[in-house]
C-alpha cells in the first residue's frame, strides 16, 4: 500500500469518484484555478474541466443552496466551504433546507450531496478561524457527519459520502492535511459511514476520539504503555450515525472510558457519548466516564494560550492516569 498524506488521499477520492461517475461535480471558493486553499482539489480542474470543477463567489449559503438544487436536479455535488467557520454563514441552507428536504417532502426526493469543510484549531488563527463545530451538525437530524482521522479513512469515507444518497457534512482537520499513512489503491476501497474502528486494542481503559483527537489519543496510548497502562482507542470516524455498538463493547471490556473532544465542553459531543456509555455500560463501568475537551473560550491567538484550549497528548494521558488512580 502506498503512503500518502491525508490531503492527497482526499484528492484521490475526489478524482476516483469523478472518474467513476460523471454526475459528480465540485465547487467552492478557490477550488478550481487556485486548486483549493488547502490544495485538496489540486489537479481537478485540469482533469475534469470547468463545467465540473467550479470556482464560486464568496457566498457560502448559496454554495450549499446551489448544491441542494443540483442534487435535486440529478447531480452529485461536492461543495467545499473553505473552512467550517464559514459554514455558519450557510447554516440556513445546511440546517433549514439540506437537512429537512427529504423528510418534509415526504421522502419524494433525497439529496446525494457532500459538503466538505476543514476545521479545528492549532494553527494560531485566533477566534474566528479555529473552531470545532462538529456538535452543531451532529445535533441536527437529516445530516450525516464524517470526521476522518487517517489518510485511509479520509479516502474511504469521502468516497462513501459521495456515493451516499443522503447529505453528508464531511469535516476535515486542517492540522491533519500533511499527516501520512498507508492508503489502499483499490478504487473500490470504501469506509462505510457509521462504523467506528478500534484503532488500538487495550484492556485498562477505552479512549473514544475522532478526527485529530484520535491521532493524539494514539500518541497518549503509546506514552501510557511505557507505564504499563493499556489503552484501547476507538476512533468514531462518523458522528452521525454514531456507532454506539463499537464503543460500548469496548467500554464493557475495559470498564473505563475517557472521551476526547476538540469542541467546546459545554453541550459538546463528549457529553452525548459519555451518556451513551453510562446507559450502555452501567453494570460494567468501574469509574465515571471522563471527558477531555476544548476549553469553553473563544480561541486566543497566542501560541501558549491556544495550546491550553485544545486537548493535548499530555492532557489525555493525564486524564487516563487520574481515572486509573482513583478508587471508586
Amino acid at each position, binding site marked *: 500500500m502506498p503512503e500518502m498524506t491525508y490531503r492527497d488521499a482526499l484528492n484521490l477520492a475526489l478524482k476516483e469518484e469523478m472518474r467513476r461517475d460523471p454526475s459528480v461535480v465540485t465547487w467552492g471558493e478557490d477550488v478550481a484555478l487556485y486548486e483549493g486553499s488547502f490544495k485538496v482539489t489540486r489537479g481537478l480542474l485540469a482533469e475534469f474541466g470547468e463545467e465540473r470543477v467550479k470556482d464560486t463567489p464568496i457566498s457560502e449559503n448559496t454554495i450549499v443552496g446551489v448544491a441542494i438544487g443540483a442534487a435535486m*436536479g440529478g447531480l452529485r455535488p461536492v461543495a467545499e466551504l473553505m473552512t467550517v467557520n464559514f459554514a455558519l454563514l450557510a447554516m440556513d441552507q445546511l440546517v433549514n433546507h439540506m437537512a429537512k428536504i427529504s423528510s418534509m417532502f415526504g421522502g419524494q426526493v433525497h439529496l446525494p450531496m457532500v459538503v466538505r469543510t476543514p476545521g479545528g484549531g492549532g494553527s494560531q488563527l485566533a477566534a474566528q478561524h479555529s473552531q470545532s463545530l462538529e456538535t452543531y451538525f451532529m445535533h441536527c437530524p437529516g445530516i450525516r457527519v464524517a470526521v476522518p482521522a487517517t489518510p485511509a479513512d479520509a479516502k474511504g469515507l469521502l468516497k462513501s459520502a459521495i456515493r451516499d444518497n443522503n447529505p453528508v457534512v464531511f469535516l476535515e482537520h486542517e492540522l491533519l492535511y500533511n499527516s501520512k499513512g498507508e492508503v489502499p489503491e483499490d478504487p473500490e476501497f470504501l469506509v462505510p459511514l457509521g462504523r467506528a474502528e478500534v484503532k488500538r486494542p487495550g484492556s485498562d481503559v477505552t479512549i473514544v476520539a475522532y478526527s485529530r483527537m484520535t491521532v493524539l489519543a494514539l500518541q497518549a496510548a503509546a506514552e501510557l504503555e511505557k507505564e504499563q497502562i493499556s489503552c484501547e482507542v476507538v476512533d468514531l470516524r462518523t458522528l452521525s450515525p454514531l456507532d454506539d455498538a463499537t464503543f460500548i463493547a469496548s467500554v464493557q471490556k475495559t470498564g473505563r472510558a475517557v472521551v476526547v473532544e476538540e469542541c467546546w465542553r459545554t453541550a459538546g459531543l463528549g457529553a452525548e457519548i459519555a451518556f451513551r456509555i453510562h446507559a450502555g455500560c452501567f453494570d460494567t463501568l468501574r469509574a465515571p466516564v471522563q471527558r477531555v475537551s476544548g476549553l469553553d473560550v473563544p480561541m486566543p491567538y497566542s501560541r501558549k494560550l491556544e495550546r491550553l484550549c485544545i486537548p493535548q497528548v499530555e492532557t489525555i494521558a493525564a486524564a487516563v492516569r487520574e481515572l486509573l488512580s482513583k478508587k471508586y
Partner: protein
Amino acid sequence: MESTLRAILPDAALLKMYEQMVLSREFEEACAEQYTKGHITGFLHLYSGQEAVAVGATTALHRDDYILSAYREHAQAIIRGAEPRRVMAELFGKATGICKGKGGSMHLFDPALSFMGGYAIVGGQLPIAAGVAFAAKFRREERIAACFFGDGAVNQGTFHEALNWARLWELPVLYVCENNFYGIGTEVHRASALADIHKRTCGYDIPSARVDGMDVLAVFEQVKWAAEWVREQSRPYLVEAMTYRFRGHSMADPGKYRSAAEVELWKARDPIPNFARRLLAEGIASEAELAAILEKARATVAEAVKYAEESPWPEDDEVWKDIYV
C-alpha cells in the same frame, strides 16, 4: 378593450386559465373555512387575490420547467397539476397528503410535476432554484427553473447571492417576484431602499420587467417572453408582478396595517371577475359557462375536503421514515 383575447390564446386555453383561477380561489377560501373549524392548523398563508400571477406564469412555462415557490404556494402546486384533494389532505396532516402529511401548507412538493417545493424560510428557495437550473443546464435539458418569491425576500442575502451567481454561471432561471406590497405587516417601501424591485437587478446585469399581476394575460405574455428568453440565452431574468393579497399574511394576521380603502381599491381589481368580464365581452364564454366553471370548482374543492376529512392519519412509525435512505 386593449387587445382581443383570441389573439393571445385559443378559447380553450383562456377558459382553462379562468378555471384555474377560480379553482385556486375556491380552494383557498375553503382552506380558510377549514382553518376556522380547526381541521387545518399551523401557519396558513392564502393566495386569494394573487391568482393571476400563478396562473399566467404557469401557463407560460413548459410542462417540465421546474417551479419552486415559498410558503404561499397552494395555487402554484394545484395549477401545475397537483391533485386538490391530496393538497387538502396535506393541509389536514393526513397520510394521503402530497408529502404524507409531513410538510403541511408551507412544504408542498411533487417531483413528477417538476414542482420542487414550497420553502418557508424567506428567500431560501432562490439559491436552490439556481441549483436545479444548473443541473438542467449541465444535463443538457431544455428546461428552466421558475422561482416564485415575495417582495420580502429581496432583502435577504440569498436574493443578492443567487442573482449574482445565476448571472455569473449563466443559469436558466426565471425569478418571479410577487410584489404584494407587504412583508407580513411591513410595507415594501419601509423595508426596501429601492421599492421598485425589478430595478434592483441592474447590479447583477440581469434584465427585468414589471407587469400588472392582477391581469392574467399580461402576466402570461410577459412570462412567456421572459421564459423563452431565459431558455434561449441560458441567462437569468426577473419579472416583478404587482399584485395584492386580499387576506392577511396568514390566518393569524387580521391585516390591520392596511386601510379598508386600500383593500377595496385592490378588490375592485380582482383578477377573476375582471377576466370573466373580458371573456363575456369577447363572446368566449357565456354567463352559464362561467357559472358552470364555478360549480365545478366548488365540487372539486368539496370533494377535496371530504377526502381530507376521511383520510387516515399517518401511522406512528412514519415519524422515523424518509429522513435518510
